[in-house]
Structures are given as C-alpha cells and as structure tokens.
C-alpha cells in the first residue's frame, strides 16, 4: 500500500494476571484508510490484541509483556489510554460496556468530550450519530441500562464514532444486532472509510460479511498470527475457512 502506515504491532505478547498468556506473538500493520479484519475462533486473542493497542489491557490486570506498538509512527506501547483517544484512536469494547446509569445522549456526549468540542460542534456531532442510528434518537433520554441489547451496542459504536477518530478498533460490532443494523453498521464503516479515510481494525465472528468490507485480514490462533492476506485471498482459502471459520451448517 502506498498510504502511510497508521498502526504497527511488533511481536506483541499479552499476559493477564502475570500467568495467562492470551497473546503470544502478534505482528500486524494497518495503512491509513484501511479496513482490516482480525479473525479467529473464540479465545484466539482478538479482543486482547485490540485492548493491547488501546492500552486497556492494564485496566484488566493485564500487561504487554513483550513487543512494541506504533501509532502514526509513535511508540504507544506504554502510552496511557486517554492520550490515544485524544490522538484519534478509539476502541469499541466487546460486550457493549455502556454507562448504564447515564442516558443514551450522555453516553454519546462522553465520547465526544475527548476532543474538547464547543457546544455547537457537540450538537452537530450528536445529530450525525442520530442520523446513523435513528433508534437512538428516540431513546436518547432513557437510561442506557434499560435499553435493549442491540440499542446498547449502537450506543457503544456511536460513542466511538462521535469522537471523529482516525482509527477505530471494533470488537464484535455485530453481536446481538439485527441483520439490518449489522449491514447499516458496515455501511457506515465503509462510508467513513471512503469519505473520511478512517481506518478500522475489526474483530468479528461474522467472517463472510467482514471480508466483504475489509481490505485485508489476519487470522489468529491461540494468540498467534497464523495467516494473513487480502480479503480476496482469504475468502478463497478453503482450508482456513474450514479450520478456523467454520462452514455452513448442514442439518440433516
């Protein structure tokens, strides 16, 4: 790719509780404006890799035991999480993680604060998110804890997008969402990517859908990168499909 690189991981190793080795050896890179898929079975280490990048592993008794991470050319291996957010690197956590006692709108606002926007800017950003997710506009005053699972997922994604990020780490964005919304989300991803050049690193179980939108992909197994290539290549690799991605189910 001719684009400059936005993210590079060099032989990352992630250790939880000083004993559980969740990521053994992951190296990968993303160019600016690229959508890259991170694929792998449950427990392969996708989420851990993403949290390592966004510096959130430490909040879960984990640490990056080895390796280095560069974001826009800077070493961010040990940078505190908030500086990354300010630098345009945000993560959508797996499992929603909304602020249950805050309203939907307050959740979104919090996502925007990192940029220290003016009031007018805030309004504007909010409107944009509500355009993406009209459902959220309806529920804007409700406490997020009482909204449905899918609504919470929208809040989590909206909260990340409102920050005008350069790189978004999306962890299982489709989980619990209705098919229509899933598509919409990927459409939004594609649009942001094309129009504003936002880069995405997406960990997702719905492989086929993901590979449709992604440019490239990496396959993780037991905390290691065991394969990578363009989306096209990956789609064609039957063996990988069978091994890690599962096949269409045939019920007798």
């Amino acid at each position, binding site marked *: 790719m001719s684009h400059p690189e936005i993210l590079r991981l060099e032989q990352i190793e992630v250790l939880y509780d000083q004993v559980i080795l969740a990521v053994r050896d992951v190296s990968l890179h993303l160019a600016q404006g690229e959508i890259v898929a991170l694929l792998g079975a449950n427990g392969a280490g996708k989420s851990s890799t993403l949290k390592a990048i966004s510096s*959130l592993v430490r*909040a879960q008794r984990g640490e990056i035991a080895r390796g280095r991470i560069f974001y826009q050319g800077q070493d961010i291996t040990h940078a505190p999480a*908030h500086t990354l957010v300010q630098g345009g690197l945000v993560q*959508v956590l797996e499992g929603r993680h*909304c*602020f249950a006692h*805050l309203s939907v709108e307050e959740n979104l606002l*919090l996502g925007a*604060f990192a940029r220290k926007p003016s009031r007018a800017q805030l309004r504007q950003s909010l409107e944009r998110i509500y355009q993406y997710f009209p459902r959220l506009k309806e529920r804007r005053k409700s406490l997020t804890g*009482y909204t449905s699972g899918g609504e919470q997922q929208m809040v989590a994604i909206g909260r990340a997008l409102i920050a005008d990020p350069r790189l978004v780490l999306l962890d299982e964005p489709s989980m619990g969402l209705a098919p229509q919304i899933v598509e919409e989300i990927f459409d939004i991803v594609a649009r942001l990517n094309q129009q504003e050049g936002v880069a995405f690193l997406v960990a997702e179980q719905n492989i086929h859908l993901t590979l449709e939108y992604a440019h490239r992909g990496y396959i993780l197994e037991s905390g290691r990168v065991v394969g990578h290539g363009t989306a096209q290549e990956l789609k064609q690799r039957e063996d990988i499909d069978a091994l890690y991605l599962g096949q269409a189910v045939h019920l007798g």
Partner: protein
Amino acid sequence: MAFFLEVLLGGLLAGTMYSLVAIGFVLIYKASGVFNFAQGATVLFAALTFVSLLERGLPFWLSLLVTLAAMVALALAIERVLLRPLVNRSQITLFMATLGLAYVIEGGAQFIWGTKVHGLDLGISDAPMELAGLLLSPFDLFAAGVAAVLVVVLSLLFGKTRLGLSLRAVADDPLAAQAVGIRLPVIWAVVWAVAGFVALVAGLLWGARLGVQFSLSLVVLKALPVLIIGGFSSISGAIVGGLIVGASEKLAEIYLGPVLGSGLENWFPYVLALLFLLVRPAGLFGERSIDRV
C-alpha cells in the same frame, strides 16, 4: 409548642452537620462507585492536621492551606496505592479496602499527631441567641450555611459540567470510561481531594464542637443513615437525609425516649432509614440499581 419547635429546629440544624460528612461520602460514591468507609477517618485526619499545625504556631490561613495540601497528597496516595490496583474490581472489594484505609488513616493520623484532645476555636460563638422565643446557636446557623453552600456548588459541579458527567461515567464503568478517553487517575485524585476538602470542612466544624480527637472518626456512623435515606448518589439527598435524620432522632429521643427508654438516638436513624428503604429501595434520591436481563 415552642419547645417542640425548638427541638425540631435544633434537630434540623444538627442534621446539616451530619450532612457535611455524608456529602464527602456521596462525592466519592458518585464518582468512583466506592462506598468509602474511610470518610470518617479522613475527617479526623484533616482536623487533627489542622489543629496540630495551628498549635505549632502556624497562622490560621497557612494551616488551612497546608492541611489542604495534605489532603490532596492523601488523595493522590489513595489513588496510587488503592484505587489504581483495584480498578474494575467489585464494589464489595473496594468497600472492604476502604475499611483497611480507615485503619491506615486513623492510625497514621494519631501516629503523627498524637492522641491528645485538642480544643478548636473557629471564633464563632456557640452561645445561644434568643430569636422569637427560640434558642438558636450562631454556630449551628453557620454550619448549616456552609453545608448549603457546599451542596449548591457540588450539585452544580456534578449536574452541569463535563467533569460531572465524566465522574458519573467513571463510577458506572471504569473500563468504558478509559475507552472514551477519561483520565481515571486524574478524576479519582480530583474527587478524593475534593472529598478531602469536604472532610476538612466537616472536621473543623465537628472539631470545634467536640474537640479534635479520635471519636471524630465515629461521626461516619451518623452519616450512614443520612446517606441511606438520601440515596448514596445524591448530593441534595445528603442534605435532605441529614435534615430528616437530625429532626426525627431528636424528636424521637425527646418524645419517644421516656416511653421506650432513653438513648434510642443511636439506633433510631437506622430503623428510620430501614423504613424508608422498604418504600424506596435506593433512598429518596438515589439511583436505582439496574439489573435487567
């Protein structure tokens, strides 16, 4: 009747003194979800530090400043040693950690400043004035005023500012808060420092009344029912709770005491709080816990 009013009024004013301690509690609960049992110990620490400095000849304002600095230092230390390593752990764990913290602060304060009883004179008279046939102490009025100011300022801070929203977010889900770029250590340090300031205010007022000594840390037990009636996460709840507890316990002691036996003031607020809870399980103004499946 006049006597009834006097009791009522006295109770209400006494209640605001409880609120002062309760506010510190609420602050921390609201901003980090920590049920901070060490708030009482912090009150002791603040008052003791201040008085000891005063007695060593520092002028009033300088002592205040130095004490404030000490409270900030304490907040930083707590953030570093306690909150940071325990981030994302269960609320019960954090609660228990504050029990340990209470020991550390209590022991530390007395280790540094000794166990002597100190008098503290803020220059506000506690001698009663007669107002429309009712006895009122200027000191009580002053304390009530301070509490009112604190409540207004802190409510504005929480309700109307971005900082306030961030604080509430941290209490809800520290991990997500980090993910949206909130600086947890800073938030915590700020909140605990503000709570330290509130503790100092409470410590000075309580200290002026009781003398500055060990049992200051026990006022936390008076603040608990206040909190529970008001709800853990509401600053105005702390005031309303304080008023309710103050007034009702005095009335109960005076009018119920002769029937049931005196000294019921110690448990009465708890039983009252219990009754409140049965009707409103999260206190008058508290956030209900959300458990949907």
